[in-house]
């Protein structure tokens, strides 16, 4: 009689394919994963607790460090929450700048995902191509905000900087450039047999699972649920743009790949329209008091981030600091389904499944 034994295998917390400090404790039977337990918290900085002692403007740089590859959307959710509480009307020019910044950042974030996801399978060249093009976006955002990742660009009532000279033209030029590049990306990866073998039918879940685990963003849309807050609950000025919500029916890693690639194209559409509609002049800041105080009460807002729905709950007792602040961080919720996906899979599929969920550990740990 051959006797098999279960073994414990520790993946991470420092492991290149976990994209951050994330640990997985696997119980394996040979090659097959019997049970997977994610261990998180290595990057926990206590943003929510720290915020209770910070003025609203001071919280904005902390949000940069949650989802650090998509900081503009995090900036937006906190200022949007405070603006909602104060009933502020944001000037149109500021709204356009915000949309441009957020959509450029979404493209940069998806490009980073694209490169690293394929890098996990052992292909290094796509990463370099993705970073080449992402670098151009980072340069644009650097010119706009003065930083490459931690932008600290938005303020309650508007944005910090107006677009510099010639910036809009550069953005307009970038859109057709990236469209051309995307064709190359598909040529490079989408038809590759090895890539298809490793993603098709891997890490599949159903619509019901996705909803029950409160997944959002591309993870939800890859199962065929047409839900995008930019369309379904338009915030800012998203109702002025014509774009589609990309969905796929399969719910596997490949579907998530195609949803994200499609989203880059949709974001480019929004950027193009925003540059066209960009107001000639106008303010970039609403009239706000020097010390911002949210009125007594509470508010919850949610927006569509690069990885899913980012929510922000503020409970205020009328002071300049929030009484309680809570972020709904999409990566944290999306990660919940991982143990279920890994059960019964082989170890070699682990990184493909984890990579396709697309987590950022700064956001998971908060």
């Amino acid at each position, binding site marked *: 009689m051959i006797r098999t034994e279960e073994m414990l295998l520790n993946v991470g917390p420092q492991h290149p394919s976990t994209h951050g400090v994330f640990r997985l404790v696997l119980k394996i039977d040979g090659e097959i994963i019997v049970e997977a337990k994610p261990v998180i918290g290595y990057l926990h900085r206590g943003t929510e607790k720290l915020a209770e002692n910070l003025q609203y403007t001071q919280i904005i740089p902390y949000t940069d460090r949650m989802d650090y590859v998509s900081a503009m959307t995090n900036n937006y959710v906190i200022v949007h929450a405070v603006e909602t509480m104060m009933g502020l009307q944001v000037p149109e020019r500021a709204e356009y700048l915000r949309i441009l910044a957020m959509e450029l950042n979404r493209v940069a974030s998806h490009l980073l995902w694209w490169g690293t996801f394929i890098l996990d399978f052992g292909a290094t060249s796509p990463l370099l191509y993705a970073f080449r093009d992402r670098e151009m976006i980072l340069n644009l955002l*650097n010119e706009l905000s003065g*930083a490459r990742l*931690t932008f600290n660009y938005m303020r309650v009532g508007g944005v910090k900087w107006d677009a510099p000279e010639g910036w809009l033209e550069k953005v307009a030029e970038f859109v057709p450039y990236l469209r051309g590049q995307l064709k190359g990306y598909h040529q490079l990866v989408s*038809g590759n047999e*090895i890539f298809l073998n490793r993603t098709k039918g891997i890490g599949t879940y159903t619509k019901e699972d996705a909803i029950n685990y409160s997944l959002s963003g591309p993870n939800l849309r890859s199962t065929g649920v047409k839900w995008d807050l930019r369309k379904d609950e338009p915030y800012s000025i998203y109702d002025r743009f014509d774009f589609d919500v990309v969905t796929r029916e399969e719910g596997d890693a490949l579907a998530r790949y195609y949803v994200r690639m499609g989203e880059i194209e949709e974001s480019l559409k929004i950027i193009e329209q925003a540059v066209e509609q960009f107001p000639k002049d106008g303010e970039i800041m609403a009239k706000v008091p020097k010390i911002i105080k949210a009125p007594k009460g509470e508010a919850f807002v949610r927006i569509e981030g690069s990885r899913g729905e980012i929510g922000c709950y503020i409970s205020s007792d009328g002071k300049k600091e929030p009484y309680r602040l809570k972020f709904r961080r999409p990566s944290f919720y999306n990660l919940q389904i991982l143990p279920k996906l890994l059960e019964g899979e082989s170890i070699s599929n682990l990184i493909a499944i984890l990579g396709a969920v697309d987590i950022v550990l700064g956001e998971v740990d908060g």
Partner: protein
Amino acid sequence: MLGWTKGLAYTLKQLTREKLTYDYPNKPIPLPDRFRGIQKFYPEKCIVCNQCANICPTDCINLTGKKHPDPTKKGKIIDTYDINFELCILCDLCTEVCPTEAIIMTNNFELAEYSRDDLFKNLEWLDENDENIRKVNKA
């Protein structure tokens, strides 16, 4: 055509493209004017209003003032001004609130030191940091 050969064709096509990398640190990296690097401090402009220390989200600015040496003049002048770059996140808020633009961002970002103590920069150091200063400080 097989999928992977298409990919190979794409890679080969890229070989003739121009190089994009910089020869850093032999060549400086071009940075936009707005770039947020280590601050420059102008002691003569500072009116010791404490706004920068109050807005700093990481509490890394420490400053003290003293009475103006000229008894006919009112107000204070700066005595010590330190920024702890172990904590500073270069968020730009101090330069945003300063009413006299006594503290301004520069394009210098090279902060690596062998000792943590060296990350503690005082008034003199911040005063001498006077290259690549941001030209337009407020929108």
